[in-house]
């Protein structure tokens, strides 16, 4: 199911929410406004797509705290922060905390749209990558014990004969396992196989 990218706008100032919502809709962007970080967090989840555009200084949870919470919950949305003029220290903290970008108020609309577009495509790319990894991991999970061993050893750069010695089986049998494994993983070259073998070491799935 494809979800439309959404801009989650968070600002405690009603006028700013209203104005930005209008502007974004005129620029053909989907946006949803929240008056506080807490309300936004209630709505956001791992399946949310798009980006977060939040004010830095708000009563209750601040923009920086929201950023940390989004990271902690692995919501995986790029966060763009709106800062007051000259707020260097906070800006630095925001970037170190993994913010996608920051914009100074008052906002230049062209830059705003540009940054948001980038953030959304970054999110889409990241999402795509995550999906792909998940598919590949699912495929790896279908491998038998022997096929998995062959994949690991191929990833280390061993030749068929060396693998045969390592596993105490004949090179012919190695060929069979290798062919079956590449078919299951939908790999057409040794380069693809090596890439897949890297996922074996990743801690995401054991």
């Amino acid at each position: 199911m494809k979800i439309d990218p959404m801009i989650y706008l968070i600002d405690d100032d009603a006028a700013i929410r209203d104005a930005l919502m209008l502007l974004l809709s005129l620029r053909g962007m989907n946006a949803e406004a929240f008056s506080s970080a807490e309300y936004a967090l209630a709505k956001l989840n791992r399946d949310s797509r798009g980006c977060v555009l939040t004010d830095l200084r708000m009563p209750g949870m601040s923009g920086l705290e929201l950023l940390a919470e989004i990271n902690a919950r692995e919501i995986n949305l790029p966060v763009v922060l709106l800062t007051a003029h000259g707020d260097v220290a906070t800006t630095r903290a925001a970037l170190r905390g993994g913010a996608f970008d920051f914009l100074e108020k008052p906002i230049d609309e062209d830059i705003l749209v540009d940054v948001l577009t980038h953030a959304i495509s970054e999110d889409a790319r990241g999402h795509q990558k995550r999906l792909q990894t998940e598919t590949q991991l699912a495929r790896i999970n279908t491998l038998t014990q022997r096929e998995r061993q062959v994949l690991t050893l191929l990833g280390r750069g061993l030749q068929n004969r060396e693998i045969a010695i390592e596993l105490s089986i004949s090179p012919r049998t190695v060929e069979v396992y290798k062919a079956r494994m590449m078919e299951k993983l939908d790999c057409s070259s040794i380069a693809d196989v090596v890439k897949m073998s890297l996922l074996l070491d990743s801690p995401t799935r054991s």
Partner: protein
Amino acid sequence: MVSHTSKTQNPAKPVRASPWLIALYFVAHIALDAVSYVQPVLKLGITPLSPQTGLVLAFLYAYRGNFGWVAAAFLVSEIVIRGIPMHAWILPLQAISITAVYQGAAWLLRLKVPMDGVATLNGTLKFILAAAVTAITAGTVSVGLYTLASLVPADQFASALARFWVGDLNGILLLTPLLLRVADAPSLLRALIAQPGAFVGILLGLFAAFTLVFLVGNPGDLRFFYLFFVPAISAALIWGIPGFLMAALALQISLVLGVQRLAEVAPLVDLQFLMSTLLVTGLALGAVVTERENSARLALRREKQLRDSESNLARASRAATTGELASTLAHELNQPMTALVSYLRASEIMMADGNRNDARLAPTLRKAADEALRASDILRRLRNFYAGRDPQLESLDLQPIIEKLVEALRRSERAGVESIVMRMDNALPAVRADRVFIEVILSNLLANALDATTDRSNAVIEIAACRSDKTVLVSVDDNGRGMSEQIRRDLFKAFVTSKADGLGVGLAVSRSLAEACGGELRLAESSLGGAKLELALPIDDVRGELP
């Protein structure tokens, strides 16, 4: 109000007297003895009046190593004034023993009852007690010697001792504090001048009492003596110890004159006993008054110190707030500005789409206008933050304020600051203004000048102060990029700025602050090619008009 130094630490160590001072003492001792040689017992130096003893005690108290001189003065005055009696051997012995008593008294006073203490009730009572003991000791030694030498009949010992005692006591009580507290004289004089009515009244009172005691009625009748209490005690109540001592001195002199004026023997001894009573009462009362004055003055000084430090604190915290305020203000102003800009851009897009009849256009523009009003509201609040509080106008020397600001700029890391030039008139008159306001205005002007010259290699900023008629003009000039005609016209309006990152608030606020001080902030013709702003402040009338 008479000021006293009421130190609690030990008095300064006694020093050696100069030869001139010793000579002066010597002459004064003999002169005092001579004028007070009235109604003696058997032509001996036993009189109810011995002001020289007060002088002796003060001299020995203040200077060291004068035992010989004092003994010699006693001896010489005895010979000069009373002639050599039959038993000449007794004179040096008597002079030495009396001097020994007074030397001991001076030593004890210094140790236990420093004369600085004669500004508190406790110290004064101790001093009175010490004076009484000293006088009785000296009297016993002196009259005892005369009795041993059979110069005084044994049956007259008691009355001679009483006569001697009261004379020495009054001499000490009156003259010793008077001489040792001579430093109080200038402040006492100021205090007397400050209350001329009381001064004249006390003189009249003394004169009236003198008339009643000595010129009217029976001279032996002492009923009127108590009238002397009125002026003397009044002086103690009004001016404390120094005032009382002056009144008592006048009283003592008038007693001597009055007694000498009478042909028959007047009861000077009785008068002196009454005088003792008056001296003790007046000293104790004067001490209470002086002590209260001193503690009131001390409390006042402490309070002033406290007030000063509090206002320094308030000033410091306000200065700190100014920085914090800038950040808060940036956020507060950015909110409506962000909304305003967004509404306007949205309107622009709606119109560019060729759909001029978009129903959202009119409300959007109205909302934009609302946001502009909201921004100006925030600015008004900022103005009230400074100008809304009543300016605390005080007499200010601008030079140190300017120097401090420039110094701070030089210390900061901003580029090109070595090029700040100060040009100030000598003897710049003080202005009447609020210190914080002036500091905010001048740092704004200097910050603007710095911003305008940052991209110049040979930046020059000149801050000048000079007098112009009834005002002091402080100008900040630079050779920066100057201002466009439009900026010039709207210079003091809020949100007008030529700076990329400016809010355009500084000059608008500065002008409000200048006007709150009764001054003016205006644009002047730059002589350096950049921009020049001129702050005119009224000269402080009280201090500024002095030549």
